[in-house]
C-alpha cells in the first residue's frame, strides 16, 4: 500500500510535462521515462508496438513490448472489417493481456498506427489503454534500450467480449445522415488529396479512388498537425487553436473524422477524444477508398 507521500513509480517531471499540456484526459499518455521505469511490470502493463513499417519491431523494440500488426492481426482476412470477438479474445490471450491489463501503445510515424490499434481495442471494450507520447522515435532519440528479444508471456484469460462499433465508428450510412444534418466532418489527409489534386497511381488501382476531392463540408486538418517535431502531441491550447480556431470544431460537436482507409483519422480521433475531451467522435474507416469510389456520393473540391 502506497503512502500518501509516495509518488507512483515513474511520476517524474516528465509526467508533469504531460499534465502541463492541459489535456482533458492526461492519463491517456505516458512518457518514455514512465515506460522505462515500468518496463518490468508485465503483470499490470503490456507494451504493444504497432507500426506502419512492419519490420521495425523485428529490427529492435522496447524491451518487453509485443508486436501487434494492424494488417495481420486486427483485420478480418476476407471481408473489409476488423477481426471478430473470438479472434480478438484469442489474440489478447496469446499476448498475455487480460481485461484488466493496461495496454500501452507506441509505434512509428508519430504513433499513427499505434492509435489505430488502440481504436480497434476500444471497439471490443478494452478501455485500459494509453499511448507512449513521442512513440518509437522519441524512445530511440533518447538512446534508450532496444532489443530484438521477443518476450513471451503466459497465456491470459480473456473472455470473448461484446463488440460495439456504434460509439466510435461511422459507416457510410452514418456519414450520409451526418451530411443531411450538416454535422461536422474533418478530413485529415494532405491538402493535395483533399482538393482532389493527388490521386493514386494507375498501377495501384486498389489504393486509389475513381474520384478525387472531399466529402462536402469537411474541414481539412492534416493529421500530423497534432504533433511536434519530436513526435509528442501538442498541448491542448495548441490543438484547440488548430481544430477549433482554424477548423471550427467544438467540444460539444458530434464529429466524424476520415482519411483514406481510416488509419490517419484514428490519430485525430484519439486527439479529439482523449486530449481535447470531445464527447462524441467517430472514425469513418471506409474513408476515401469507399466514398471516392461510391456511385453518386457527393464530392467537393
Amino acid at each position, binding site marked *: 500500500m502506497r503512502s500518501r507521500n509516495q509518488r507512483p513509480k515513474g511520476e517524474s517531471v516528465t509526467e508533469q510535462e504531460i499534465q502541463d499540456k492541459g489535456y482533458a484526459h492526461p492519463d491517456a499518455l505516458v512518457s518514455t521515462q514512465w515506460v522505462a521505469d515500468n518496463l518490468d511490470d508485465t503483470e499490470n502493463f503490456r507494451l504493444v508496438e504497432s507500426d*506502419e513499417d*512492419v519490420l521495425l519491431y523485428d529490427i529492435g523494440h522496447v524491451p518487453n513490448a509485443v508486436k501487434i500488426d494492424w*494488417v495481420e492481426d486486427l483485420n478480418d482476412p476476407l471481408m473489409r472489417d476488423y477481426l471478430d470477438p473470438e479472434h480478438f479474445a484469442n489474440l489478447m490471450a496469446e499476448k498475455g493481456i487480460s481485461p484488466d491489463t493496461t495496454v500501452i501503445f507506441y509505434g512509428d510515424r508519430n504513433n499513427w498506427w499505434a492509435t489505430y490499434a488502440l481504436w480497434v481495442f476500444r471497439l471490443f471494450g478494452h478501455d485500459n489503454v494509453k499511448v507512449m507520447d513521442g512513440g518509437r522515435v522519441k524512445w530511440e532519440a533518447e538512446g534508450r534500450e532496444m532489443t530484438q528479444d521477443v518476450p513471451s508471456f503466459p497465456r491470459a484469460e480473456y473472455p470473448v467480449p461484446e463488440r460495439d462499433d456504434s460509439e466510435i465508428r461511422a459507416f457510410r450510412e452514418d456519414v450520409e445522415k451526418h451530411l443531411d444534418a450538416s454535422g461536422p466532418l474533418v478530413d485529415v489527409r*494532405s491538402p493535395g488529396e483533399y482538393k482532389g489534386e*493527388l490521386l*493514386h*497511381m494507375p*498501377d*495501384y488501382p*486498389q489504393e486509389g479512388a475513381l474520384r478525387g476531392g472531399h466529402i462536402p463540408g469537411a474541414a481539412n486538418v492534416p493529421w500530423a498537425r497534432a504533433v511536434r517535431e519530436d513526435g509528442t502531441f501538442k498541448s491542448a491550447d495548441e490543438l484547440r487553436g488548430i481544430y477549433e480556431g482554424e477548423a471550427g470544431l467544438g467540444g460539444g460537436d458530434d464529429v466524424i473524422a476520415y482519411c483514406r482507409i481510416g488509419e490517419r483519422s484514428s490519430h485525430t480521433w484519439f486527439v479529439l477524444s482523449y486530449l481535447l475531451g470531445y464527447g462524441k467522435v467517430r472514425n469513418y474507416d471506409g474513408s476515401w477508398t469507399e466514398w471516392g469510389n461510391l456511385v453518386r456520393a457527393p464530392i467537393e473540391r
Partner: protein
Amino acid sequence: MLVDHFESPRYKGALESADVVAPGGSPECGGSVTIYLKGDGNGGVESLTWTGQGDIISMGSTSIVVDRILNQNLSMDEILAEDYEELIDSIGRDIIRNRTRHATLGLSTIKAAVRQYRKSGRPRSGP
C-alpha cells in the same frame, strides 16, 4: 538482404538525363517511388535509378529489383515479363507476408516506366 538494401540502397538518386520519370504509390500513405529510366535505343536499359520514401519492405525491394535488372542486364521485354510472385518468393514470403503491395511497388512502377517509354515512340530496337 532486405534490410541491407534498405540501409544501403543501390542506384538511389534522380537521373537528369532520364527519358522517363515515373511516379508510383502514394507519398501520403504507404510509400512512394519515382523511377528514372533511360533506354539504350536497342530495347535495353542504359540507366535506371530511383528515389522514394517508405517502409523497409518497399524501399528495400525497390533497391533489390533495380540492382537485379542492371546486374542481369534485362531488356525492357524481360522487365515486363518479371513475375511479382517470384519477386516476393526471392525476397522471402515469410518476411513480406501480407505486405505484398509494398514489395511490388518498385517493380510495378518500373514496368509503368517501360510502358511509358514505349508509348512515347522511342525505338524498341535499333536498325
